[in-house]
């Protein structure tokens, strides 16, 4: 056959197999089919993973975003000097003898008056019951405000009080008339009044920066709970981890990779570091409890202890990627530096380490991000405690009791009031935001320092 038949319709003319190229044989069909199946598995796996992620994000955000909005009751409160400062000297020390209950009564009275002034029908509710619509925490806020500025006594201030958690829950759809009827902490009448007050502009719902700045609150006051202490505690711990784990981790990696002789001991150390990275984090908590608190005598619940424990946990997670990054630097660069007479240390600091920097930084930030989200070891060193006071400024603040973001989330999920579910989800959003910022930083640093050789 001399003419070329582009269609192949004439069939094979020769060849060992006797097959035309246009008609795939059985083996080829089987191979192609298995490849198609494999690709399908991959697509299915990715789709499932994405759906799971989507579902996670939707559930967290739908549950957590309301935490950033809060119901407030805005009323003018007359600060009666005769009640709040019986001695009449305007001395904050004497005024401190009036407890929050006294201030609470003032707020309740002010709200009842406001209800009447706006001409809102309170139904069968007594003044005391109307007062219960305001968060108990507001009285403390008002008290702090007055003690900080005694001149306010005798004046009428426009006060923004937190609404009670049930009222807040009603506007967020968490509390309904049916549940309120069974709830001894609130009643359908209160909710109806809240509706009317909202129409009258006394009750408003708006963005709540206090969620990020306020301290934790007790079980009955989810509306007053904030992440302030937890965020500061977490930042302090990250500071400790960064200051300790980065230099120690990099120094250890450089020594092991560039200077240490390769013998049985260094092999043993290498295996141990790899194993330490896989040790459950709660083990580090027990270690920290034993060493830093029982033997070292450091205070419980303190960010310094949390930071030390997380440093121990993070070290292998920094050493492993740092060593990998150092290994990835081509030996020709070391030869070049040694060849012009650089010392070993100069070779490392001038050439090898800068080239390994993207890997080191990425490893460090990923290690920090893991440490930021770590809960278990912190439970053991007492960071799960209820902390109402902000820790002081560093360095002494590092020894003050504090909380941490993941522990705060764990803590809130243990609370009875459903208002804390929303708070916990909101805290997860904050934690995720921190992690996204850190991972973005890792990517940016990696891009910035990445060089070709």
């Amino acid at each position, binding site marked *: 056959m001399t003419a070329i038949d582009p269609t192949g319709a004439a069939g094979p003319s020769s060849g060992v197999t006797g097959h035309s190229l246009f008609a795939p044989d059985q083996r080829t069909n089987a191979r192609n089919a298995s490849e198609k199946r494999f690709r399908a598995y991959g697509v299915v796996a990715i789709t499932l993973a994405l759906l799971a992620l989507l579902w996670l994000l939707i559930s967290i955000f739908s549950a957590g975003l309301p935490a950033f909005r809060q119901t407030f009751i805005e009323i003018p409160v007359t600060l009666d000097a005769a009640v709040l400062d019986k001695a009449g000297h305007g001395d904050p020390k004497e005024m401190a003898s009036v407890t929050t209950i006294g201030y609470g009564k003032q707020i309740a009275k002010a709200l009842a008056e406001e209800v009447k002034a706006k001409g809102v029908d309170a139904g069968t509710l007594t003044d005391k019951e109307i007062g219960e619509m305001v968060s108990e925490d507001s009285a403390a806020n008002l008290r702090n405000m007055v003690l900080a500025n005694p001149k306010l006594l005798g004046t009428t201030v426009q006060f923004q009080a937190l609404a009670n958690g049930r009222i807040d829950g009603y506007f967020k759809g968490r509390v309904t008339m049916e549940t309120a009827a069974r709830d001894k902490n609130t009643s359908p009448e209160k909710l109806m009044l809240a509706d009317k007050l909202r129409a009258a502009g006394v009750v408003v719902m708006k963005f709540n920066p206090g969620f990020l700045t306020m301290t934790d609150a007790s079980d009955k006051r989810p509306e007053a709970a904030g992440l302030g202490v937890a965020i500061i505690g977490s930042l302090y711990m990250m500071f400790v981890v960064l200051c300790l784990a980065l230099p120690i981790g990099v120094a250890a990696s450089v020594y092991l990779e560039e200077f240490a002789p390769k013998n049985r001991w260094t092999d043993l150390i290498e295996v141990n570091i790899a194993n330490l990275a896989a040790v459950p984090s709660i083990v580090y908590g027990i270690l920290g409890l034993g060493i830093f608190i029982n033997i070292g005598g450091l205070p419980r619940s303190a960010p310094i202890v949390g930071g030390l424990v997380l440093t121990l946990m993070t070290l292998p997670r920094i050493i492993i990627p740092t060593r990998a990054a150092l290994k990835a630097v081509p030996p020709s660069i070391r030869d*070049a530096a040694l060849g012009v007479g650089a010392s070993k240390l100069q070779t490392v600091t001038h050439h090898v380490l800068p080239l390994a920097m993207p890997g080191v930084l990425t490893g460090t930030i990923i290690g920090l991000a893991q440490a930021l989200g770590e809960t278990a070891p912190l439970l053991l060193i007492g960071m799960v405690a209820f902390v109402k006071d902000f820790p002081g400024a560093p360095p002494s603040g590092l020894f003050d009791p504090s909380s941490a973001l993941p522990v705060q989330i764990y803590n809130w999920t243990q609370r009875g009031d459903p208002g804390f579910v929303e708070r916990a989800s909101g805290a997860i959003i904050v934690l995720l935001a921190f992690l996204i910022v850190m991972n973005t930083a890792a990517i940016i640093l990696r891009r910035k320092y990445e060089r070709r050789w």
Partner: protein
Amino acid sequence: MKDLRLERDVQTSTNKIEARKVQVYYGTNHALKDVDVDILDKTVTAFIGPSGCGKSTFLRCLNRMNDTVASARVEGIITLEGENIYDARVDPVQLRAKIGMVFQKPNPFPKSIYDNVAYGPKIHGLTRNKAELDEVVEGCLRKAALWNEVKDRLQSPGTGLSGGQQQRLCIARAIATSPEVLLMDEPCSALDPIATAQVEELIDELRSQFSVVIVTHSMQQAARVSQKTAFFHLGHLVEYGETGTIFTNPKDPRTESYITGRIG
């Protein structure tokens, strides 16, 4: 080994490096056996031989780069102007400033062209100020026949140059510490013929100031650039002498076999 030509040459040119009974072991592997060589000043000496014959190993002994290989052990005496470089008092860092090295693959630092050349003088404190350093950099780049190509982009990265330019940059970097000997480990094996020709020309020019030792796989290259040639085989220095003699009238049958392409 007692080549008459070599002894005649010694009268006209001084010995820069003398190696006596050099043995190198990698672990239990005896890689280099009983090597005796005198390397002359202001001469290009070529080391040739089949792969794994020990020529690169010997080259790396000359500036103690083998120190960086944990399993390597060197015995025997290598002197630079009468001083044993393996003496305990010798700091390899100082030695390597005196004996520069150019590697097989161009390996500029991932820094600017200027910084590549300036690095050696900087770490050895050879210049007192920026102006002097600028001068050294320019001088070395000129000697490496690279100045005209890069003078307008000294701050651009050295890794952005072509292969031949990178290798000449590495040569400039090696001579920036004003070494007395320049070791070159197959400097042209990663280069195209044009870049190779440029580097070879450069080697010939460098001979006026340095003693150059070059390891090469190309016998033509050895013949073109060197005055002295040493042939290594299986860890032995088989023959050492005038390049012309080695290539036209080798004494050892192994040398002849290698040169005519029967072994290696």
